[in-house]
């Protein structure tokens, strides 16, 4: 049985059909990367899976159980689905450690000692144990994002959602965050990742889902998608990241 199953999901936004009949599933331990042009609905899809956006029709199943019903207690579901946002969104009035402990202590009501031990261990793994008593404003963007990942991980989620987590970072900080995610993938964490980092996607993904105009237009293994995309739209999309045809001093006007 798949860990996550999305069946026939439709989402409208002010009468605008932003997600059209989306169906896919994610197996336990699988890393799925969602690619697509901006405005294609990638982030919205992630937010629907975490119940931050309502959907108009379709089903979302976690471990075979439908989680998008009126009776769904989202705060319980979200304890199993970790999410990391583009803008980190650490709580500015709490230290790094308090940020990480809030969910496990208040939402999961776990033992403080046990959680503290786990939090320290996780912080150590992302190289930030010495920052545990810092406030978010004292950290760099890359450090904040690593803390945000730890904050989600400390809930022991079954599935992690990453929503363009490197998009607001300075280039030199992107790597430190991606390394943490690669590490997680290696350990077998189930992840759905929205990103614009193509090389990273190629390295981390078991499967690529290509989203365009609110529709899934292509699903393929990572190697296959990048070397031999099937649809025209995917080809065009991949070409945007290609600078091979550009040469200095050569008249490129025709191509532009």
């Amino acid at each position, binding site marked *: 049985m798949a860990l996550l199953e999305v069946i026939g999901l439709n989402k409208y936004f002010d009468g605008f059909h932003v997600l059209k009949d989306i169906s896919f599933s994610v197996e336990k331990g699988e890393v799925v990367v969602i690619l697509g042009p901006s405005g294609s609905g990638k982030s919205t899809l992630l937010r629907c899976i975490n*119940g931050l956006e309502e959907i108009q029709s379709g089903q979302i199943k976690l471990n075979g159980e439908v989680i998008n019903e009126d009776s769904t207690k989202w705060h319980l579901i979200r304890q199993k689905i970790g999410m990391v946002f583009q803008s980190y*969104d650490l709580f*500015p009035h709490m230290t790094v450690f308090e940020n990480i402990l809030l969910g496990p202590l208040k*939402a999961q009501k776990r033992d403080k000692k046990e959680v503290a031990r786990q939090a320290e261990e996780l912080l150590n793994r992302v190289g930030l144990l010495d920052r545990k008593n810092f406030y978010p*404003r004292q950290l760099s963007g890359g450090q904040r994002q690593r803390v945000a990942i730890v904050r989600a991980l400390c809930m022991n989620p079954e599935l992690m959602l990453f929503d363009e987590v490197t998009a607001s970072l300075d280039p030199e900080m992107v790597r430190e965050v991606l390394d943490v995610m690669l590490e997680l993938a290696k350990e077998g964490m189930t992840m759905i990742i929205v990103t614009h980092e193509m090389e990273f996607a190629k390295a981390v993904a078991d499967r690529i889902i290509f989203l365009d105009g609110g529709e899934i237009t292509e699903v393929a293994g990572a190697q296959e998608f990048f070397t031999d995309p099937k649809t025209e739209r995917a080809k065009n999309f991949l070409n945007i990241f290609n600078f091979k045809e550009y040469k200095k001093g050569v008249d490129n006007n025709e191509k532009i």
Partner: protein
Amino acid sequence: MDIGFILEISSLYLEAAKFTLKLASIGIILSLLIGLFCSLVNYYKVKFLKKIVNWYIELSRNTPLLIQLFFLYYGLPKVGIKLGAFTCAVIGLAFLGGSYMAEAFRGGLEAVSKAQIEAGLSIGLTKAQVTRYIIFPQALAVSIPSIGANAIFIIKETSIVSAISLKDLMFVTKDIIGIYYKTNEALLMLVVAYLIILLPLSLLLTYIERRLRYAGFGN
């Protein structure tokens, strides 16, 4: 300037200052409660209450305290509602201050970004927990400068309650000018008394404001 006279009247001013502070403190506390209530009604868009709250805010913000006091103290008894002068002053200050505090809290609540709320939800907190652990602390930090400024404003507004014969600093001053004709001494003491009350508060507020700006909560 008659120093001996100043010493003589200083105990009167001390009493009056105590009275002013007592009145202002009650006014500020009630204003905070009313303001918090109103801002929460608006923030959570409570249907029917929202309308009442907004009308109250408009009424409060667009009428002078002095007129409110005259109406409460001289007008209402004629239709059978008799309130003591002190009660009137408290009601008037709370009625006025409540809308200002509501505005201060509103600013704080609006400064808490949607992303912060979602980040709270995404780690499995319930809505009530998000309100308690994330929205409140951040909103309060943003609101504190305005709350402080409003508190000072309310203290200053108490300066008109002598109009309904309450014995505050202004009342004592007018009394001394009337009886002894020692205008300079009385006015000096009046200014000194207000400065002793307001200057430390104002400096404290400036200090807190700087600290909070450094902390950089909200947007």
